[in-house]
């Protein structure tokens, strides 16, 4: 533990800016993954344990797309759409068959896919660490804000995540599709009785959640090194985020993700070996005092 370093950092503007921007980046990417996880849970009532693998797949698809097209925006879009499509297939042929089954079977189907996808990535892209490198468009001098260094890419990444968050909020609260999704989450039987195809809704929500995870993987590709199995730690983190924010709540996921992002970046200065411990501590406290999460609606 190094509390002096933490206080020293909190005393200097430049350190605060640098750490905050790092924390926001971590939080933004985490939000995209957690939003899909929480959306799928809110509507379908299942937790997609393979969600981290979707993120991994997104990063690798983006890597390949970038190497082919040399266009980062295109690569990120390809990652989102590609993984979204994969999630659709996964839902249609595998997950759908165990919705009504025991948790045990849902868990095992996802477990099987985590194992399979890790090995598929190994076969297609190789087992060693890979990195995309910073795209040319972002290879500029970093910004200096209040003495702190903020890479240009971070600003774009935050803007992209903010845009997606806004879009998500708009779709869920202001459009007909959003209304249908919320209705299916609240009362699937009634929604189905009103003539809406709940199977289709489930499939679309699952695919959309996959798309978000893939997009997150694609967006993260320039700043993260890739390896098979990289999806697992983000799965655990996004689970912690959804517990803190409240299962099924997208705004809660945003709050939780930013919180975890900041805990990670400042915690790595103060308690480098205990960062994960602090995240768990935060989760444990929330679970004890408000089991439904910060923005949850009583489900526990």
């Amino acid at each position, binding site marked *: 533990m190094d509390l002096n370093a933490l206080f020293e950092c909190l005393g200097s503007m430049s350190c605060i800016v640098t750490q905050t921007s790092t924390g926001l980046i971590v939080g933004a990417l985490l939000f995209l993954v957690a939003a899909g996880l929480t959306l799928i849970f809110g509507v379908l009532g299942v937790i997609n344990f393979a969600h981290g693998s979707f993120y991994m797949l997104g990063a690798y698809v983006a890597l390949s797309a970038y190497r082919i097209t040399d266009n980062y925006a295109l690569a990120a879009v390809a990652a989102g759409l590609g993984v979204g499509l994969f999630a659709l297939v996964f839902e249609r042929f595998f997950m759908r068959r165990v919705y009504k089954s025991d948790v*045990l079977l849902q868990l095992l189907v996802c477990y099987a896919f985590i194992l399979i996808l890790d090995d598929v990535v190994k076969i297609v892209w190789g087992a060693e660490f890979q990195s995309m490198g910073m795209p040319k468009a972002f290879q500029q001098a970093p910004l200096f804000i209040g003495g702190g260094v903020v890479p240009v890419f971070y600003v774009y990444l935050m803007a992209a995540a903010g845009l997606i968050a806004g879009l998500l909020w708009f779709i869920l609260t202001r459009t007909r599709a959003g209304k249908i999704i919320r209705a299916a989450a609240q009362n699937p039987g009634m929604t189905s009785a009103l003539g809406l195809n709940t199977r289709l809704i489930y499939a679309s929500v699952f695919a959309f959640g996959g798309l978000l995870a893939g997009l997150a993987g694609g967006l993260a590709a320039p700043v993260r090194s890739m390896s098979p199995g990289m999806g697992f730690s983000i799965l655990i983190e996004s689970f912690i985020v959804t517990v803190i924010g409240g299962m099924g709540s997208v705004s809660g996921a945003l709050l939780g993700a930013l919180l975890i992002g900041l805990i990670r970046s400042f915690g790595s200065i103060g308690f480098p070996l205990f960062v994960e411990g602090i995240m768990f501590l935060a989760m444990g406290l929330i679970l004890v005092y408000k089991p439904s999460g910060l923005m949850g609606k009583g489900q526990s």
Partner: protein
Amino acid sequence: MSGLKRWQKDSAWAALALLLLLALPLLDPSRVVVDFIIRLCAVGLLATSLNMLVGYGGMVSFGHAMFFGSGAYAFSLMLQKTAVSVPVALLTAVVFCGLLAAVIGAICVRLKGIYFSFLTLAFQMLLHSIIITWTGLTGGDQGLTGGIPRPVFIGIDLSKTQHVYMFSCVLAVVCLLVMRLLMQSPFGYTLRMLRDNEDRAAFLGINAWRVRLYAFILAGMFAGVGGVIMALFVSGAFPDFSYWTMSGEAVFMIMMGGIHVFTGPVLGAALLQIFNDTITRNTQYHGLALGLVILLFTLGFQRGITDVFKGWRKWLPAANKGGH
């Protein structure tokens, strides 16, 4: 059947199984069989203790290997760092696992269904990362190497494979018998009632949280014994013991063997071990192969092997319907 007869019958089966296991090296003294059985003792305890939660309690833990790993580390560390005897180290390891399970369980058993699964998984990853980062104590990702001292006690010398074999068999069979008796006791039936109808149990004045916590602690301790056997077998402890894939395999073992028959998980453990040994000899893509087999079982058969036999038995006229 009266309760007394049943426990006598279970004990007789256990004694017979132990006798057969101890006689096995006389028939086939090859190292392969001995190694296989020792590993099976360890993993079988992991799977059966997990089934106390999953099959009997309806609590699908996805982090059960954390107690397996804790048992292995606690046992090895006790022998390496202190001068205690093997039984004391064993006891310490089991008590440590029980305490750990009490703390983690107190938080986890409040939750149900998939929440419980995920939370146990998350705690397991916390424990795993502690093992990885606390290099000074645990050896980090290299694992706890250097071998463990095995002082001789009451004529048992655990540096001999033969003695490790007998020790493991006795330990595993005794633990299995105790678990079986526990599950046939009023406690076991309370656990089943909580699985099937929690409201009714609550009306009868049962404190669900407490019963589940006890089950969680007991399961953790038995998994710890499994870890101790594994530590003896590999002469140390490795972070992989408490990694999530180990828990995933344990969950698959009990699903494959069948969760409704007490010995199903042991059968599942044996099958998965044979499968793993075959796969790793033939391909490096172990995950891919295992994943496909899991999909075959979960989506194809949708139940375990002993469940299939149980289904058949129903059709036999004068079938002896023991168990549950």
